[in-house]
């Protein structure tokens, strides 16, 4: 069987396959070398980095599979277009082939499942916090960040004269800021005061529902300082698109100073910043 196969496959073809393999590897290398992210963000926490790596692998695998199948489709529709009125051979099945394309996907699924579980366990592990511990409460339509160990330092969305008067412009409203120290693991306890909200920090590659009756616990270990935009993603009613906040990652020293100051002047914290929402990392 094998020898027959070898006879049929001309050396040129083998060489071409080899080249294609090397090419694919090289392409992968180049891609990772020049910061190709397929649109995703690498993130600014260790958890986000892991997710990004998983994304990267799966994006490459997914694109490879998609391109492979697309090529098969395009090949067959161009190559086998009707040219004359003949009736082709009525092939109905090819059992070994069918088994092959059942088994290979199963193997691929097992591989991605293993990687998924590894990353998932890392992201969901809750190491002992060395940084802040924050009780986050989502409500219609804003956020309350209460620092657990810091005499009730609380940052919240500035309430204007009630939701009905909210103008439809971003800068008339002041969005609260969640301040976290860089390099330390901070833990969040997430709750909701009314409906389901989504605590989503894009640069953390992370979304978790805030639900009534449920407390979700998770941790972040930021790696970069800067301002990061964040927003409620789970539709929560009329002003869902206004439910923004910022995340400010600062150095340890800055964090300590900020916390001290906040304990002394709690008033200053309500809607503490009018920082525009999209400045990105510093």
């Amino acid at each position, binding site marked *: 069987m094998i020898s027959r196969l070898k006879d049929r496959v001309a050396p040129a073809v083998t060489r071409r396959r080899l080249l294609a393999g090397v090419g694919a590897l090289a392409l992968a290398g180049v891609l990772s070398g020049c910061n190709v992210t*397929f*649109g995703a*963000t690498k993130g600014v926490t260790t958890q*986000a980095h892991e997710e990004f790596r*998983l*994304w990267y692998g*799966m994006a490459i695998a*997914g694109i490879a*599979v*998609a391109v492979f*199948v697309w090529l098969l*489709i395009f090949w*067959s*529709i161009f190559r*086998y*277009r*009707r*040219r004359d009125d003949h*009736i*082709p051979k*009525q*092939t*109905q*099945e*090819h059992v070994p*082939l*069918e088994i092959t*394309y*059942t088994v290979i*996907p199963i193997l691929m*699924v097992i591989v*991605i*499942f293993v990687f*998924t579980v590894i*990353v*998932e366990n890392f992201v*969901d592990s809750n190491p002992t916090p060395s940084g802040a511990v924050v009780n986050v409460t989502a409500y219609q339509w804003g956020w309350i960040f209460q620092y657990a160990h810091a005499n009730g330092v609380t940052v919240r969305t500035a309430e204007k004269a009630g939701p009905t008067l909210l103008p*439809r412009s*971003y800068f008339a409203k002041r969005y609260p800021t969640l301040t976290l120290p860089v390099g330390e693991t901070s833990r969040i306890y997430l709750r909701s005061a009314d*409906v*389901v909200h*989504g605590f*989503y920090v*894009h640069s953390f590659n992370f*979304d*978790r*529902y805030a639900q*009534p*009756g*449920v407390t979700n616990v*998770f941790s972040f270990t930021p790696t970069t300082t800067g301002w990061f*935009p964040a927003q409620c*993603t789970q*539709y929560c*009613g*009329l*002003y*869902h*698109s206004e439910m923004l906040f910022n995340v400010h990652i600062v150095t340890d020293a800055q964090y300590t100073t900020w916390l001290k100051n906040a304990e002394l002047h709690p008033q200053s914290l309500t809607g503490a910043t009018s920082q525009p*929402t999209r400045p990105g990392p510093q």
Partner: protein
Amino acid sequence: MTIAVERTLPIPAEEHGPTGLLKWITSTDHKVIGKSYTITAFVFFCLAGLMAMLMRTQLASPDNNIVSLHLYNELFTMHGSLMLYLFAGPFAFGGLANYIVPLQIGAPDMAFPRLNALSYWLYAFGGLIMISGFLTTGGAADFGWVSYAPLSSATNTPGAGPDMWIVALVLTGFSAIFTGVNICATVFYLRAPGLTMFRLPIFTWNMLVTGILILIAFPVLTAALVMLWCDRHIGSHIFSVAGGGVPVLWQNLFWFFGHPEVYILALPYFGMVTDILAVFSRKPVFGYRGMVFATMSIAALSTSVWAHHMFTTGTVLLPFFSLMSYLIAVPTGIKFFNWIGTLWRGSIVFETPMLFAVGFLIVFLFGGVTGIILASPPLDFATHDTYFVVAHFHEVLFGSAVFGGFAGLYYWYPKMTGRMLRNDLGKASFWFMFVGFWLTFVPQYWLGLAGMPRRIAEYSPLSGWTLLNRISTSGAYLLFIAVFLMLVNFLLSFLKPVPAGDNPWDAHTLEWATSSPPPHHNFYWIPPVRSERPLWDHNHPEHTTIHSHMPANSVRAATSTVHSGPGVHPDHGSRSDFRGEDGDE
């Protein structure tokens, strides 16, 4: 290439029951009901499409003011609800399947014709009730098509609109259940002699499995809606924390319905595409049995993956649901390779249905791949509720319901009306749709990866999302043109009909063995069934795949007689256990 089958009997002048409007209201003929369903579903598709145009226009610029926040919320809720509950499902199982399944199995009608009519009326009135929500003072429902508790409670979304949404879904839910029962009974009991289960056309197989899936999924939705109504009106607190209820329960119930639902919306279209690919490649379906088992496994698995929509709730078993969701990729992959196997070495001709079918393959593939990405909890954490998800589900839903569904519509339109649709107009419509589709939805992947949440009516100019949104909106306008061209095509086929003939595509299955449109009770003559392609075997006896000694076109005998109307007493001699709906009086 057009091969007309001779009829052994001339068509008598059919004068059956009332005509005109009364015919549409009182008919129990599956063909009339199927047409009513198809037309109604198409109207809902157009309405929902117009809502989508409004939304896309609103999103074309940051801080846009075309619609109010409240209206935007109503729009996406009703767009999603109309598309899923009133278009994609009913178009498939109420419209095309209703019309085609009895024909494909050589049956005179659906098993329960009056129940079938009742299904249609429940659906039609349900749909009317749902959209009339817009006429109430508080506006239509605005809690998204999933209506998560407790946002859907009486305090958070008061008003008649949401209640009408609930009632509408209960009605259409029953309509779907009745149709499911009807399809299963029809396929089980009304097949032509020799048409064993493993000779059913794939479309019929898929409809059978869809029917079972409907029976699994819809009762759960109906039950959940009743609970929701009780919470809203008689203070039962099933979904509210205040009264000791559990809000997450809603999500469990809803998605136990919701995920099978998306396969209820996909499997019928898979079936259509399978048949179409085979016909236009002049080959049998490659890997027939694999196809059937893949359909069944997809259906089975799809009922054990519901919580992949709830990864970010932090309350579900991540690895279980993730693995089950991944596993769906395996039968779907089998289907893809079988489709390619069907094309392979075929003799492919690109009539409009084939173009849409291949469009489906190309589009759905990418939607499937991004689905695998979303089935990974860590990656779902990164993309959940962003435009990545919006792009993903449009790719699969639009891919199946619109590309697949229009393939089916173009394919069977000649059968249903006796008229051809214009091929060049159809192709133009396809190309607008294909290009428009990618323009609309691929930028949404990037938007999602750039962090744009779904269901937002406005975004900041600083967000950097403007350009991609503009591209997406312009693509949506191309889609609008594509649907418009299609409507023109329908109109032309009425103004200047081109007669279709019985079998314009040289097709394989029984529905093409009768006239277009078929007579009352469908058949005067049925070719002998010796494989899953009876008509092909009959028309191309030298190219069959039958491995028996029996010649394919054996003697043409008179087929079973079907009696209708008053006073018929079924005779149990030849069909041992079948009894008509009101057989035992």
